[in-house]
């Protein structure tokens, strides 16, 4: 008996408890979805609001995925993809600029002070407030609408990434920098091999948030102008009238894509930060 028998007994005792907890968690998640759908069904069924029922909407949604929308001659995936392309372009552009800038601003004191005032003035301006000015600025460009949309998404994604990168650099443990310095590491080596990896978890958080905001910005930017994309699709579906199921389907697509992006970034983070 003694020590060796005790440990497995304790372990066996705990396993079912955690498993049943997981079971309840799962049930709760399911229940929350069921509640929303049941509420929706009640509101629509009793004609409290002019809403299509969940089943009718699902039918339209699946139809949009398979056959597409006859008015636009496009499937829902194609519509979403055209928005997504712009978001990917704009977000990548913004990360490529914001991460190095954030690393520099976080590690070079005078640069931080130099740019702080301007950034603090620009940061509170909502990305959408840039739309009119952007149309003026890109009026003579080849495809003004696309440029404006890229610009607005860029602005939306830029600040979270920049601020989280700066924050991440400030969180880098000074003992790591001191250790590198006593080994005679160069400034460049410290920046790339100590500061950057030390800040990476925070940078990834910024990228996740940045993508999310970028995805919101594209929808709004497409309301205002253009003849493409998911924002344009739900807005014009409203203008046509009587297409509530299409509007809701579009909204669902926005939600699904947004959460896929966020999961993808988290997945990528786990792969790129194996040491945690």
């Amino acid at each position, binding site marked *: 008996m003694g020590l060796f028998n005790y440990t497995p007994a304790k372990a066996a005792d705990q396993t079912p408890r955690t498993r049943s907890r997981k079971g309840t968690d799962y049930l709760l998640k399911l229940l929350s979805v069921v509640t929303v759908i049941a509420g929706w069904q009640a509101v629509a069924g009793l004609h409290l609001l002019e809403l299509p029922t969940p089943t009718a909407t699902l039918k339209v949604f699946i139809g949009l995925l398979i056959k597409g929308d006859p008015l636009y001659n496009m499937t829902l995936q194609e519509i979403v993809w055209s928005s997504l392309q712009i978001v990917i372009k704009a977000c990548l552009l913004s990360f490529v600029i914001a991460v190095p800038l954030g690393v520099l601003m976080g590690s070079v004191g005078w640069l931080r002070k130099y740019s702080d005032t301007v950034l603090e003035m620009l940061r509170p301006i909502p990305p959408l407030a840039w739309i009119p000015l952007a149309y003026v600025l890109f009026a003579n460009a080849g495809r003004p609408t696309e440029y404006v949309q890229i610009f607005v998404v860029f602005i939306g994604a830029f600040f979270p990434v920049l601020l989280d990168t700066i924050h991440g650099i400030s969180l880098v443990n000074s003992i790591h920098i001191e*250790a590198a310095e006593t080994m005679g590491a160069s400034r460049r080596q410290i920046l790339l091999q100590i500061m950057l990896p030390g800040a990476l978890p925070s940078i990834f958080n910024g990228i996740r948030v940045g993508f999310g905001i970028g995805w919101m910005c594209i929808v709004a930017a497409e309301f205002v102008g253009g003849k493409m994309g998911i924002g344009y699709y739900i807005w014009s579906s409203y203008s046509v009238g009587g297409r509530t199921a299409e509007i809701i389907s579009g909204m669902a697509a926005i939600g699904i894509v947004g959460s896929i992006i966020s999961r993808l970034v988290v997945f990528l983070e786990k792969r790129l930060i194996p040491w945690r």
Partner: protein
Amino acid sequence: MALILRGVTHRFGETKIFEDLDLQVEEGCFCCIVGPSGCGKSTLLRIIAGLYRPVKGEVLLDNKPPSLDKGEIGFVFQEDALFPWFTVEENIKFGLRARKVDKSSWGQIIEHNLQKVGLADYRDYYPSQLSGGMKQRVAIARVLAYNPKLLLMDEPFASLDSLNRNMLQTELIDLWAREKKTILFVTHNIDEAVFLAERLIVMGSKPGRIKRVLDINLPRPRNRTDTEFCRNRRSILEIIES
């Protein structure tokens, strides 16, 4: 590497840490530093390494002020200073790259130094997968790998169990006897100090100062149960508590 401190004064804001501190350590000396917590032992090592610049006074290593880019110093920190994003092997490589050690010899150096600290099988582990004691061994291997002339060790064995601690002490003494490095070794453990040191620096606090410098002339290998050993330990304890 000979070390000289002259009139070193240091403050953090308004708090005085050292006032006019003098110290000389000859080349090849194994020097232990003991003193109450907060008296400035870690700060002293950082000043010697050139991480902090003293407010007044000078530090000379072989007649030159300490310079970080030469990497003549191996610093083993009191805190866990391994880079968590690098594996054990990559941590050692960082120092070799910084010191511009010839790349063709890296493999052998890493193997050799990990063997020295008994972690040859852990090359590809991340620090988060190691125990506190194992991390400290890697930190020592990382520093030994680029062969610095002066070793500054800030309570390197404090987190080890006594068996491992005794083993590493013996290995450190062997290394020192073989390679005649100058070593400054901070410890809270009198036993450890008497076992290791040729010279013992007893520090006092408020402000930090050097209370006594003693030579420990016990023959090596030293034996912790020896009557001479115990007598030394007792008299040092009396000096510290006085």
